[in-house]
């Protein structure tokens, strides 16, 4: 199969407007004859569901939480980018485009990224109109802050809870459509499969998580807005329920999975405190505006710190190594995430890590506090400092924070074309669930932007084109594909419920996480990856023999839910390994030890790897087939990224 990304011809800046003009429209009076399923109610899903319903389509929306407002987008802290240039500091659509392409280490499509930058400005307008309370200055206008990978201030924020405020905005738009009867909301429902008829997506199978009922829902198109799969690592900054199930089921029904190994490891998270750890907490990147990252200059000092013989605050200036400032003088502490994370790991590997475990570096606010005063620092970051204190019992106003990188975001996801359609006609993927815009590394504050761009401003146009093509004829739920898919789902659930072994599903999940973190984390090698592949295959066999899954299907059953998700994560893990093995270059968050510069920086290989990897499922326990979409760069010059 030839992958066609359907990027419109013509100059970069005209592609999207031309494309919009060329797309077919659905006649207003016909819109109500169509039904669209939206799975997921995060920023991508809520904005899409509300916007499509406003246009007149009937929407059925699904989420696994008890309310759409609780989707994981709620947890985003730092901010959302937009090329508004309200600061007059030289920002523009072109610059946001360029920063994003470069930040992604030249592994994203020019056309998509330019469109993202273009619609970014509309997002802020939309959110403000809904009543999203962004931070403001004394003059009453919107405030901005800086984020990594950019030299302009283009990040809009709402204290440390930008995600919650944006999601509440999208959720309010969704509520309005629920009120109007245009959206039917299914909370506490988990999508377990996609139904395809003659190769087209025409519905889903979902489990009511309270009663266990397996439901069939038909529609003219299905939108997956189901978020990222960072929890494949067990420990991540994602919410406990974040999972790959929807995307993975779609993958098994024919949707290609792209760049699965591209994961973002966020440099500033609270370090692991013990085996009981269930998730990791992010300390927003915005902290790097004022916090300085350092470790002690020598291993000896680090050892004394770990043993509690000396305190961090007692170290003199010349006993500290502000390694990011030293190595990257022009970006300093604001280098992109992949660079900051890898450097922290390097320090720890050299034995300069701090904290009792030795697996942490410092993020220090002493300078900012003496420069700005404690109150000013509190006004900016108070809630983050409180959160840190709550978790660690240490006061970051008095001593430096301890931080360490943690899995945070997945750039990989379902392959989509310019219209956000997967390789299955009628099946779309939006937000973190798709692979589209961030290449091999996402810049801070760009995921919220992408989710809302996809939902508010892209899909309302592109979906219409497909719907106009297939026509409004009602979907036949009597088609055998619906009963067959439902049966397959029920059988899988029964198979899971029959597992009465001796190991808990959490134990498998933790084990998987350890393998992924060790061999497919911040640095990857051929040898390690090969070993990991074998380990995961064994883990899978063991899971389907020895896992314990309790209870019945016909009840609220945490045990069953978790088992299904972990089983999918195990399979995804193997594909991530395959992808990481295939890509024998270093780019963005993907660091292959075989491919580095003399200074130990990531070394891309554009000759061989300037492509999107798109994996096709070929059958149970069979190797997946790799398809390559070549990336063409006509507007930016590929260069080795430098933040020095």
């Amino acid at each position, binding site marked *: 199969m030839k992958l066609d990304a359907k990027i419109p011809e013509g100059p970069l800046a005209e592609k999207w407007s031309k494309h919009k003009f060329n797309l077919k429209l659905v006649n207003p009076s016909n819109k109500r004859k169509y039904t669209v399923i939206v799975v997921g109610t995060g920023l991508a899903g809520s904005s899409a569901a509300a916007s499509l319903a406003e246009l007149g389509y009937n929407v059925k929306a699904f989420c696994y939480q008890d309310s759409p407002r609780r989707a994981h987008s709620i*947890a985003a802290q730092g901010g959302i980018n937009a090329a508004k240039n309200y600061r007059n500091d030289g920002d523009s659509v072109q610059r946001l485009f360029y920063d994003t392409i470069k930040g992604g280490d030249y592994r994203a499509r020019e056309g998509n990224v330019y469109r993202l930058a273009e619609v970014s400005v509309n997002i802020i*307008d939309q959110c403000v109109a809904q009543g999203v309370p962004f931070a403001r200055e004394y003059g009453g206008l919107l405030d901005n802050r800086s984020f990594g990978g950019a030299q302009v201030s283009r990040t809009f924020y709402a204290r440390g809870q930008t995600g919650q405020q944006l999601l509440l905005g999208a959720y309010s738009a969704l509520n309005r459509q629920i009120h109007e009867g245009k959206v039917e909301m299914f909370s506490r429902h988990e999508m377990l499969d996609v139904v395809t008829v003659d190769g087209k997506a025409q519905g889903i199978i979902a489990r009511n998580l309270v009663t266990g009922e397996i439901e069939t829902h038909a529609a003219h198109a299905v939108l997956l807005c189901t978020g990222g799969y960072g929890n494949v690592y067990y420990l991540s900054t994602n919410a406990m329920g974040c999972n790959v199930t929807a995307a993975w089921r779609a993958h098994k029904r024919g949707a290609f999975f792209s760049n699965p190994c591209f994961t973002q490891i966020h440099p500033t998270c609270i370090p692991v405190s013990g085996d009981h750890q269930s998730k990791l907490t992010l300390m927003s990147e915005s902290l790097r505006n004022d916090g300085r990252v350092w470790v002690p200059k020598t291993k000896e000092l680090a050892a004394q710190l770990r043993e509690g013989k000396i305190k961090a605050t007692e170290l003199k200036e010349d006993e500290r190594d502000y390694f990011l400032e030293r190595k990257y003088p022009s970006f300093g502490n604001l280098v992109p995430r992949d660079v900051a994370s890898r450097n922290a790991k390097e320090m720890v590997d050299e034995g300069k890590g701090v904290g009792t475990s030795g697996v942490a570096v410092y993020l220090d606010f002493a300078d900012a506090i003496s420069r700005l005063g404690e109150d000013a620092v509190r006004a900016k970051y108070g809630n983050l400092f409180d959160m840190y204190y709550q978790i660690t019992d240490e006061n970051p106003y008095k001593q430096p924070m301890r931080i360490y990188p943690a899995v945070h975001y997945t750039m990989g996801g379902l392959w989509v074309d310019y219209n956000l359609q997967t390789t299955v006609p009628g099946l779309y993927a939006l937000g973190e669930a798709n692979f589209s815009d961030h290449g091999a590394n996402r810049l801070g504050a760009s995921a919220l932007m992408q989710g809302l761009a996809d939902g508010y401003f892209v899909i309302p146009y592109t979906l219409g084109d497909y719907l106009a093509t297939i026509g409004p004829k009602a979907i036949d739920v009597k088609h055998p594909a619906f009963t067959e898919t439902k049966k397959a789902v029920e059988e899988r659930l029964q198979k899971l419920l029959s597992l009465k072994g001796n190991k808990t599903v959490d134990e498998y999940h933790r084990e998987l996480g350890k393998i992924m973190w060790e061999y497919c984390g911040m640095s990857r090698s051929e040898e390690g990856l090969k070993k990991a592949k074998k380990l995961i295959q064994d883990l899978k066999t063991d899971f389907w023999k020895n896992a314990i899954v309790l209870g019945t299907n016909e009840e609220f059953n945490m045990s069953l839910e978790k088992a299904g998700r972990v089983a999918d994560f195990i399979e995804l893990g193997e594909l991530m390994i395959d992808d990481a093995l295939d890509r024998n270059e270093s780019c963005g968050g993907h660091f292959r030890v075989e491919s580095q510069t003399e200074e130990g920086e990531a070394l891309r290989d554009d000759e061989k790897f300037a492509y999107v990897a798109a994996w096709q499922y070929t059958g149970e326990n069979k190797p997946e087939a790799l398809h390559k979409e070549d990336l063409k760069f006509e507007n930016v010059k590929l260069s080795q990224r430098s933040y020095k």
Partner: protein
Amino acid sequence: MSGNMNLTLKVWRQPNGNTKGTFVSYPAPGISPDMSFLEMLDVVNEGLVKKGEDPIHFDHDCREGICGMCSLHINGRPHGPKQAITTCQLHMRSFHDGETIVIEPWRASAFPVIKDLAVDRSAFDRIQHAGGFVSVNTGGVPDANAIAIPKPVADEAFNSATCIGCGACVAACKNASAMLFVSAKVSQLALLPQGQPERYQRAQAMVNQMDTEGFGSCTNTGACEAECPKEIKITNIARMNRDYFTANFFKEEA
């Protein structure tokens, strides 16, 4: 490890909404003070699963105090003994060795139990369907900086907007009133210029829906404010009441 605690849990177990529930005691040995409360429950649950017993069901997701999903009544207080945090942010260092911890679901007739500690809070969603929005469609809105909003106003609206919809206010109230939650939602939009055109209808529609859902009335005891993890102020309630009565007044005029 030194410093670990041995605790006893008294947990409300109820298989589903149609069956009566009861307290069951579980030992929770070797609990580290660095664990979060929910991690402590994870450990207990893994032990139960190993023994083939149904784990204790509870709602949770983000585990960082923002999604509003976690909802435990701990030793008689929603979200436990500490101020201004959610259950998932509570750490075991707030308890001491040998302690018995009583864990219950939110209790309110408008929040029926689904299983064990998980309750149905969809009433909150329905209140917001009734009017918790500004009626603007996607596209065609003015530039974000077209309206300047004085910082103090924006900040005040923000304070109301921080409500995470957890329902602790209802659980804390002897009347199971939802006034704090509803008033926070109403206030955010009542304070901002964007919310003015629909201000009074909004208050009315949301309050009416709240009454339909069977939440109790407010008798100004203030327990909600004391237990709210986001420190939502009770002054929101007065603001909402004013808007609600203004709405009725306009209706009579018309």
